[in-house]
C-alpha cells in the first residue's frame, strides 16, 4: 500500500430518473482511494455503493461533483477516453461473472489480453487463480466459483491498477467465496493492485485495509483495520 492517490471523488452526486420518481443514489460523496489499498464498501441495498463503483470505473457519470484518476478529470472524459480507461486501467468483477458463454476460460481471458497494452499470458492469469487445469473449458462446464475465478483472471490479466468488484462472492457458497477472496488478496499483495470490493457481508470487511460504510447515498463511516485477517481465516 502506498500513499499515492489513485481516485479522488469530490462532492459526488448521482440522481436517476425512474419514471416520475427521482432517486438520489449519491448525495455528495467525498472519497480518496490510494494505490495498493484493499477497500471494502459495506452498506444495505440502495445505499449508493454500486453507483460509486460504476462511476469510478467509467461505466456511469455523476450528476454533479468530480472524479479524478491520478489527477486526470474522469468526469470530463469523452466516450472514447472512457473506453480506453476501462480497457487499460480498471478491471471489473461482477456478482454474475458475465463470462462470454461461447468462449473457453482461456479465450475469455484472451479477449482482454488481445486488446491490452502489456498483458500477462491468459494461461498465466488462469494459473494465478488456480485454474491452470481448466483452460479449455467453456463456462457451461465450470462451477460458479470457477466461473468467478475466470472472471477475476480476465480482470487482472491486463495488469490493471484498479480492480473493482461488485459483490464478487454474492452468488457463491462460503467455501467457494473464500477461494475467490483468496485470489483477490493474492492479486492485491503480489501486484499491488488497488482493490475495491462491494459486499453485504460484514465478515469480509475484516480482510480490508479500510472499510467504508454507506448509508442513504452518503458515507456513513470509514474505519481502518489495524488487525487484518487473511481471507482463508474468514467464515460466514
Amino acid at each position, binding site marked *: 500500500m502506498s500513499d499515492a492517490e489513485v481516485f479522488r471523488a469530490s462532492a459526488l452526486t448521482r440522481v436517476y430518473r425512474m419514471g416520475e420518481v427521482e432517486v438520489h443514489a449519491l448525495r455528495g460523496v467525498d472519497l480518496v482511494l490510494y494505490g495498493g489499498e484493499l477497500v471494502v464498501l459495506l452498506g444495505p441495498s440502495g445505499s449508493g455503493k454500486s453507483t460509486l463503483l460504476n462511476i469510478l470505473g467509467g461505466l456511469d457519470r455523476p450528476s454533479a461533483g468530480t472524479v479524478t484518476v491520478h489527477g486526470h478529470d474522469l468526469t470530463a472524459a469523452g466516450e472514447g477516453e472512457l*473506453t480506453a480507461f*476501462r480497457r487499460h486501467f480498471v478491471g471489473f468483477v461482477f456478482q454474475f461473472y458475465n463470462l462470454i458463454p461461447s468462449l473457453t476460460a482461456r*479465450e475469455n481471458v484472451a*479477449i482482454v489480453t488481445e486488446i491490452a497494452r502489456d498483458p500477462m499470458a491468459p494461461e498465466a492469469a488462469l494459473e494465478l487463480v488456480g485454474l491452470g487445469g481448466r483452460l479449455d473449458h467453456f463456462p457451461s462446464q465450470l462451477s460458479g466459483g470457477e466461473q468467478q475465478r475466470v472472471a477475476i483472471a480476465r480482470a487482472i490479466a491486463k495488469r490493471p491498477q484498479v480492480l473493482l468488484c461488485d459483490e464478487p462472492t454474492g452468488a457463491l457458497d462460503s467455501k467457494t467465496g473464500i477461494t475467490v477472496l483468496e485470489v483477490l488478496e493474492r492479486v492485491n499483495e503480489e501486484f499491488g493492485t488497488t482493490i475495491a470490493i462491494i459486499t453485504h457481508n460484514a465478515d469480509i470487511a475484516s480482510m480490508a485495509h479500510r472499510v467504508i460504510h454507506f448509508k442513504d447515498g452518503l458515507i456513513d463511516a470509514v474505519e481502518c483495520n489495524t488487525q487484518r485477517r487473511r481471507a482463508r481465516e474468514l467464515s460466514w
Partner: protein
Amino acid sequence: MTLGLWPPRALTRKLWRELWTMRSQAVAIAVVIAGGVGTLVMFLTSLYALTETRAAFYQEYRFADLFVSAERAPVGLLAEIAEIPGVQRLADRVEAGATLELPSFDEPITGQLLSLPDGENAVLNRLHVSVGRLPEAGSGREVVVSDGFAEAHELRPGDRLSAVIRGRYQRFEIVGVATSPEHVYQIRPGDLMPDHRRYATVWMNREALAAAYDMEGAFNSLTVALTRDARPGEVIAELDRLLEPWGGRGAHDRDFQTSHRLLEDELTQLRSIAVLIPGIFLGVAAFLLNVVVGRLIATQRETIGILKAFGYSSGAIALHYLQLVLLIVALGIGLGVGLGYVLGEQLALLYAEFFRFPFLDYRLQPRTVAIGAAATTLAALLGTLTAVQRAARLPPAEAMSPEPPPSFRPTLFERLLAYWGVQRWLGQPTRMILRSIERRPGRSLMAIIGIAFAVGILLISPYQRNALDTIVDAQFSLVQRDDVSVTFYEPVSRRALHELAGLPGVQQVEPYRQVAVELIAGHRTHRLAVLGLERDASLRRLLDQEFAEVPLPTAGVLMTDYLAEMLELEVGDTLEVRLLEGRRETVQVPVSGTIAEYIGVSVYMELTALNRLLGEGDAISGAWLAVDAEQRPALLSALERRPLVFGVIESEAALENFRDYLDDTMGAILVLTTALAAVIAFGVIYNNARIGLAERSRELASLRVLGFTRGEVSYILLGEQALLILLALLPGFVVGHYLYAGLVAAVESDLYRVPLLPSPAGMATAALVVLVVAVISGGVVRRRLNRADLVAVLKARE
C-alpha cells in the same frame, strides 16, 4: 363453477404490451407477410380478372372454336360444311393483307383486312365497337380499325386511312374503333411484341373487299363455332377434306390462334408466379415468426412458470402466444390485401396494355382474400407451433428456474484450423461469431436460405434483361441481317428481284419462299410455313447453339432444335411434309440438321429444292433487302405503292419497338422485384440482428465494460449477420438461377424459348442491394446497442 372471463383481461393486456415492446420486429415480420399476401392477392386477383374477362368476352362476342383459311372457296360449299356433325355456326369471310398509309405517319403499316357481313356485325368473333359505329350497308369506303392501332395514332371516326390493295390505292374513312375476341393480342404474325403503330386490323364491308380481291361469291377464311358435344378432331378432318380442292390450308383450333395462344401462355406464366413468389414470402415469414416467438418464449420462461403455478393451463398459455402470432399475421394480412389490391390493379392495367379487352372485370374476390389469409395463417402456425408447444409443455418448476447457460464448443472450422496449426489466426470476437452461428445451425441455415431467396428474387430482373438482350442480339444482329423485309401477295417470279434492286438505296436483295405445310412425324404433327432461302444467303443466317453458321443442305431440311424435340426427330430421320399449297402433295424429306432459335419454330430449305417439291418454277414469296440508311425513306415510299408488295417490315423499327417494351416493362419488374427482395432481406437480417442483440446483450455489455469500443462490440453482433449474408450470396445466386429457370420452363413453347444465362452484373447488383439493406438494418440495431444500459444489463440475473 365458472371459469370467469376468457381470455383473462390481464393476459390480454400483457399481450398488447408485449406486442408494443416488440413493435419494430412485429412490423418487420408483418411487412414480410404483407409481401406474401400482397403478391398472392395481386397475382390471383389479376389472374382472376384476366380469366374472367376473357371468358366473358369470348362468350359474349362469340369467339370461334376452329379457324381455317383457303385460297378461294365458293360460298356454296358452306351448306355442306354446316352439315358436319358438331358444327354450330359458321362465319365465312374474306381476309387479305394490305399496306396502309396514314397522313401523319410516313412509315409502312401492315394491315390485316377482314370482311364484315354487309352493314352488320360478324356472326362469330364479333366486334366490340368502343368508339363510333360499324360501316353502313353498301358503303365501300367506311372501315373500322383495331383499337391498339387507333390509340397509337390517336385516330377518331372521321379520320382518313388509305390502303394499297393489290396495287390499287384506295381511300377509306374510319367510322369506328373496335376489338374482337380474335384480336385481344394485336400482333403482326412473326413479331416479338405488338407494334400498334405499324400493325392494324381493318374491318370493312364484304362487298368492297371481295371486289378488290376477286372473291365475289367466295371466301378465303372460315371460322366455326362448335356444339358442346362436338369432337373437334373429327370436325377438323372433315373441314380439311371439304376444303382441300379449294386450297384449304388446314383447320386448327384455338391453340394455334395467335391471340388466344399468347394470352393463354401469359396466364400460365402468371399462375406459376402466383404460387412461387408468395410461397417464398410466406416461408420466410414462418421462419421469422418461429425465431421471434421462440426468443420471446425463452425470455418469458419464468413468467410462464408463474402463470402455470397460478393455475393457467398449458392450452391457455399456448393460446396466449398464438394470439400474439395471429395479431402479427392479421396486421400482415390487412396490409397485404390492401397492397395486393392496389398493385393487382396496376398489374391488370399493364396487362390491359398488351391484351386489348373491351372491359376489365377487376375486383377483389372474397375467395382470393380467404386463400391469402388461410395460406398465411397456416404458414405462421406451422412456423410457431414448435415454439409455442415448448412454452406449453414446460413444467412450472422448471420454467421458473433460469435457463441453464448455453453450451458451446469449438466449431468445425476452428478444429480444421487447429488441425493445420493456424487457429491463432482467429481472434476471440471472430470465434464468438463462428460459435454463435454453429450453435444454432437450424436458425443460421434458415437465415441463409431467407437471404438467399432475397438474392434470388433480385436476380429475376437482370436474368430477364440478359435473356431478352440475348434474344434481341441474336435475332436482330446475327439472324435477321436485313434492313427491310418485303412480302408479296402471292408467289411471284424471280424477275421481281431486279425490280427491287432498282429501287432507291437498295444495296442487296435476297429472295425467300414461304410455303404453308403440315409436318408429320409418326403421330405428331405441326403446322407452319417452310422457309426456302438461297444457299449463300447472307441477310438471313441460320445458327447453331454456339451462334456458328449452319450451311443449308442441298436436299434435306434444317429445323429448329425445339421443333425436332417436339416431333421427336433426330438428324438423319425422315420427315413427312404435307404441302398445303402448290401441288398439295405429301413428300418425304430428310432432316439434315438442327439450328437454335429463340423465337418461333421453323423449317428451312434450299429455295430451288423447295420450289422443285412444289412443282413451281422459280417462284418467290418475298425478299430481304440491305438498304443505304440515308435513302430508306425514299425506298419505303417507293415500296408502298408497288402493286405486288403487301408487307414491308423494317428491322430497325421492330428493334426499336422491342426496346421500348423492354424499357417499359423491365423497369416495372425491376422496381417490384427489388422492393420485394428488400422486404425479405430486411425482415430476415433485421430480425436476426435484433434477436442476436437480445440474446447477447449481456456478453456485449461485458465486452464494453472490459474496454471494447462500440465498434468492436458491433463487429461481434453485426459480423455474424455479415457472415451469414456472405454465406447466403452464393446459394442466392444458385436460387436465382433456378428461380428463373423455373419461370422460363413454365413459358417455354414453340412460340419462344428464353435462354438461361447467368448475369454477373445482376449478381453484383443483387449482392449490393442486400448489403445496403444489411447496412441499414445494422445501423438501426447498432443504435440500439449504443443506447443499451451497460450497468443494468450486467447486474441482471442470468
